Each structure stands twice: as C-alpha cells, then as structure tokens.
C-alpha cells in the first residue's frame, strides 16, 4: 500500500463574482436583480485555486501559509468537501477530520454538557466515542463547574476553551486544521499548541493553515505557500517561511496583518501600548530589507493613556528558528520611558550588530519594574529581512549561525614556511 495520505492533482476552484456571489438578502434586491438580468452575463471569474498539485505522505505535517485571500482556506474547504472543486481531483487515503473553526454548531441555549455532544457529532464523532472521551474533554476545558450552565452565560474564554477541547479530541487519521490556535488567551494558546504538538507526535497526517509562523515552524516540517491560488513555494518550513516573509515584507500590501495579532498579555486598560514597529534605513524612510552589516533604526510608535514614568523598554530580535539573537533593555543604556498621555515615537539606532541573512522578528515589552506584569508585550512581529550584499552567495539552506562575524582576520600560510 502506498504511503501517500493526500494526493492533490491540478485542483482548481473558480468563483463567479457578481453572479453566484451576489446575495439577494432582501426582496428589494431580488426585484432589482430581475431588471438587471441582461447585464449579468458579464460576471467575472475568480480563481481561488488554480492547478494546485501536491502530495502529503502519511504521518507528514504540512503547514500552509500565505496572505489573507490567497486561497489557503478554500483549499481546506475543498479537501473537507464543504465546497466542490471546479477542476482537478484530490484523493484522501484514510479517515479525514477537519477543523475549520472551533465551536461550530454550539448553541447558546444549550449547556456545556449538551454542546459537547452536539459539537462532537457535528465534527464527525460517534456518540459512544464522545461518551468515552467526555471526562477528558471536560478536564482539558477546565469548565467542570459550569458543565450544566447554558453556554450563553460563559465568558468568551470559557467558551473558546470548551470548543477547543472538543475539537482537540477529534482523532481521525488525517486532520485538516485552519487557524484554530489563534483563539483564547496566551496561556490557553500555549496549551492548544501543546495539544497540537502531541497530535503531531502521534504520527497523524496534518494539514495546518496558520498565520502564526512560530507555530508553523515548531509543528511542521514542510510548508506550502499559496499565492493567488497557486502553490508558490513548497519547501521545508524554515525556507518557505523565510521566502514568504520576504515577499510579505517587500510588497506594499504587507501591512494587512494588524500588530494586535502579535500582542500578548495585554492588561485591561493598559496605560501604554505599542501601536506600530518600523525599520528605518539610512535615508530615514521605512524599509523592509536591510543589508547585512548596515546600521539600522527601529522606530516604535507608542500610545499612552496615562503618564508613564521611568519604564523600561525591551527589544528582542529573533531569527527564523525562533532563537533570541539579541535582547536590548533600555535601562542598560540609561534610558527610561517617561511620557505624558498621547502618541510618541521611540527610535533605537542599532549601530553595532551584524545579523546574518534571513527573516527577523521582534518582541517588544514595556515594563515598570521587574516584579509586576508588563504593560504590553508584542511577540514575534515580523520585522525585516537581512540580505547579504553579495546575493550571488545566498542560498536558502545555507546554515548561517545566529550571529554574523563581520570582522575576521585570516592568515593562510604554507606548511613548510618557517
């Protein structure tokens, strides 16, 4: 028997914009539509997927990355049989389960207990299977006390925990997952990620869509980058992510992902938070790519709602393997953040740091002291890409270390020279 779990061949999906996509939500729209009928012939076709081909081996965990609207979710929807392809074919060998959302079919009037059964059945679990895993699901969700309370009275955190707990106990041979880890608070995300990690270790086949590059990097070995409905990159996760981020950063539409996506542990009514992070080049304009060895400036936009006095600003640079390359504490340089309410910028010029080529991410934290929680933490924000001046020497898998040694004095002598 072959060891292929998923085989996708020239899969395409076309949407008709302006015809099938038109919603007749009201009687008036529909009546107006009747009179516009002759104009409808020129509906535009939009290819959400175009000739997508790839294979996934049994036990392989493949990440799917790409911008919003690139076609990642359409791919999962076609593979989950929610929508039908326009062309091509896909073969899936094994029981498949898909998780495109957590809490699908949850009903607010029903209790937690009732929703576990309902949601489990909707995800494709058998009744006895749900009954068997029931205690495990409840334990994972940490909502024991509220099991018989209608979920409409749950906090959003409880709701998400319960929903994820049911989903996490789905055990098909092949799992299709869409961005479901981006829910809940930081602690729960960590737990969810851990659960996903154990799914991966069990040797199940997983297709995993995410915008969270750290998750893709830690869970998957290979990643497909989808660009305008086509597979643009099919490589090891590290390479695919680097290449994807490079494109993401250098294109103007790159800023669609909000910084809030990377925000962690935000206090309620925090007095100060980071609004944006930019890289400034020599001519003081925003850039996304810097040359290896060149000095660069990091500009932070801060918004304070209360006066801040003597806070510390931490900037941590990470490389694409999620290693901390450098951590900069403003206190070390005798700099304290003391600002009045309003918007402020902080510029840190990095004069003496030579980063090897690759994609870089930044964590930014603002804290008042070392005991209490930080005011605001941004983590894993895509910062920039460093390229070496001699691109001719660049190759994707080249094992650069964590730091670049800019100045090496070599001596090469012949052996027999005295």
């Amino acid at each position, binding site marked *: 028997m072959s060891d292929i779990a998923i085989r996708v061949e020239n899969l395409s999906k076309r949407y008709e914009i302006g015809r099938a996509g038109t919603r007749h939500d009201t*009687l008036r729209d529909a009546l107006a539509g009747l009179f516009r009928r002759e104009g409808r012939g020129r509906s535009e076709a939009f290819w959400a997927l175009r000739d997508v081909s790839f294979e996934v081996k049994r036990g392989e965990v493949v990440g799917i990355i790409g911008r919003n609207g690139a076609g990642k979710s359409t791919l999962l929807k076609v593979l989950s049989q929610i929508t039908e392809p326009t062309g091509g074919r896909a073969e899936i060998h094994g029981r498949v389960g898909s998780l*495109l959302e957590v809490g699908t079919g949850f009903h607010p*009037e029903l209790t937690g207990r009732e929703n576990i059964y309902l949601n489990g*059945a*909707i995800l494709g679990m058998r009744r006895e299977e749900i009954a068997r895993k029931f205690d495990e699901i409840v334990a994972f969700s940490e909502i024991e006390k509220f099991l018989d309370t209608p979920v409409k009275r749950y906090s959003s955190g409880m709701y998400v925990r319960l929903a994820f707990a049911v989903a996490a106990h789905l055990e098909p041979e092949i799992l299709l997952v869409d961005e479901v880890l981006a829910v809940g608070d930081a602690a729960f995300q960590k737990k969810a990620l851990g659960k996903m990690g154990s799914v991966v270790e069990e040797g199940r086949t997983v297709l995993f869509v995410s915008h969270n590059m750290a998750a893709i990097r830690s869970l998957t070995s290979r990643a497909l980058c989808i660009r305008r409905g086509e597979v643009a990159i099919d490589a090891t996760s590290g390479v695919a992510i680097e290449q994807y981020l490079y494109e993401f950063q250098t294109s103007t539409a790159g800023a669609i992902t909000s910084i809030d996506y990377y925000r962690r542990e935000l206090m309620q009514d925090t007095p100060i938070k980071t609004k944006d992070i930019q890289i400034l080049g020599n001519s003081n304009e925003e850039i996304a790519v810097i040359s290896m060895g060149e000095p660069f400036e990091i500009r932070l936009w801060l918004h304070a709602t209360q006066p801040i006095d003597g806070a510390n600003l931490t900037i941590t640079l990470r490389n694409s393997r999620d290693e901390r390359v450098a951590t900069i504490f403003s206190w070390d340089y005798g700099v304290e953040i003391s600002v009045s309410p309003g918007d402020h910028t902080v510029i840190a010029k990095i004069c003496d740091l030579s980063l090897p080529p690759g994609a870089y991410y930044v964590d930014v934290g603002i804290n008042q002291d070392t005991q209490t929680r930080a005011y605001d933490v941004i983590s894993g924000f895509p910062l920039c890409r460093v390229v070496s001046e001699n691109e001719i020497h660049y190759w994707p898998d080249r094992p650069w270390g964590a730091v670049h040694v800019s100045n090496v004095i070599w001596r090469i002598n012949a052996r027999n020279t005295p």
Partner: protein
Amino acid sequence: MRAEQSGVPTIENGAPLSAANAAPLPTLVIEPARGRFSLQLDRLWAYRELLYFLVWRDVKVRYKQTALGVAWIVLQPLLTTLIFTVLFGMLLEVPSGDVPYPVFALTGLVPWQYFAGALTRTSASLVGNAHLITKVYFPRLIIPLTGVLSGLVDFAIGFVLKAVMLNIYRIQPTPAVLLLHAFLLLAMATALGFGLWLAALNVRYRDIGYLVPFFIQIWLYATPVAYGSTLIPEQYRWLLGLNPMTGVVEGFRWALLGQAPPGRLFALSVAITTVVLLTGLVYFRRTERTFADVV
C-alpha cells in the same frame, strides 16, 4: 464527490479488518460532480447520529427558549380550535358532519399545524444553518430532514390532546386508526418535498423567506381544516384533491371520527406529493454543492 473503498485485494465486501496495519483505509475522491445523480443514501445512513443530534437540538432549544415551554404546544391548537369554533362553527355555522365542531376542527388542526411548522422550519433550514454548511461536511439532506422530524414531538403532544378531547366527547376511533401513520407519512413527505424546493431556493433568493408564511396562510384556506370538503360543490371538489393536505386532513377525520374516507382524490394527493418530493430531491442534490459558496 464520491467515496469509495480502496481496492485492496485482501478485503472482501469492504468489511474492515481489525489489525491496525492491514486495515483498509477508506479512500475519498474529491472531484467535480459528473452528470449522474445519486441520493447518497449510504452517506445519509453514516451520518444518522448527526441527524439525531440536530433533531434533539431543535426540540430542546424550542422548549428552552419559550417561557411557557411545552404549554405552547398545547395552547396553540386549543386557541386556534376556539377561534375556529366561534368563527366558523357558531357564526358561520359550517357543517361538521355528525361530530361536534370543536372535535372536527382540532382533528384537522393537529396534522395541519405539524405540516405548517415542518414546512416553515424546513424552508428556512439551510439559511438558518449557514454556519454549519460553510464549516463542516455532512450530507446536506440532513438539514431539511431535521426540520421535518423535529416537529413530530409537537405532533405527538397535539395528538395526546386530541385523544383527550375524543375521550371527553366519547367518540370511538374507527379501525382505520391503524392507517393514521400512513396519513402522517403523507404529511411528512409533502412538507419535505415542498421544503426541499423552498430551502434550496431560499439559499439563492432570500425572498422565499418572506413568501413562505404567506404561502402557508393561503394553503390553510385551501385545505379543509376549518370546513369539510362537502362544503365545496361536487364538480369543483377535484381541485381540493390537487392539495395533498386535503388527503391528510380527511384521512385523519376518517380514521378518528368515522367520517367519509378520502376516496379517489387521495390517489391524486399521493401522486402529487411523490412528484414534488422526487423533483425536490433532485433539485436539492443538484444545487447542494454550491450551497457553501452562495449561502
């Protein structure tokens, strides 16, 4: 899209083997639909537990959300019977045969209200469950089926009410009571047939949602619920036969009250329901693959 068992030679008649390594993996082939039509009853059967849970959810939620709960199910036919009795029985003096008018009206109302409820729920079902359709795969037929089945609980309660009423008026059901389930089945099939059409059309044309209540109201007057078909002149009575619900209501009155059997027109009712149900199934199956894109 279709599912097929992979052709591993070691398996006979597709029975799964228990050994983990040798277990045949089901192979799912996803491709654009070809012309051939299939009801996919096997898939429907595989998803029967989901159907059960969705019916259970519908019933549970319906009783949880209302303050009066189950009392509603009893009050609704009772109040309507009261209004009908005053309006048609006393003021207009509509003939009700050899039984008191309230029993006559209630006997017709219980199957009618089941039908009206089932049709309303079914035609709104796809749009109402859009969040499921766009996020999970299952045979879409389950959704309208849920609408038809979840009404049976209300029907059962209404039926008990009717039995109590018959007892009060000391009316003995005829032996034809054994055929009641056939009339109920006709009501279900009619609701499902029209419901399939309306549900699928409603995905694309939301006006259906506004038309259905109006449509059902007219249908009530075209069905001998408040009156008997004997009120209609002989030569026009076949028109009533075009309405399958005539057969259902008359069948109930025949079985429970011993009134005239539905007669030849019943065959017409069954034929019409069969045609609507079959075309509804075909139309539904043909359009269901675009539901997720359009809804």
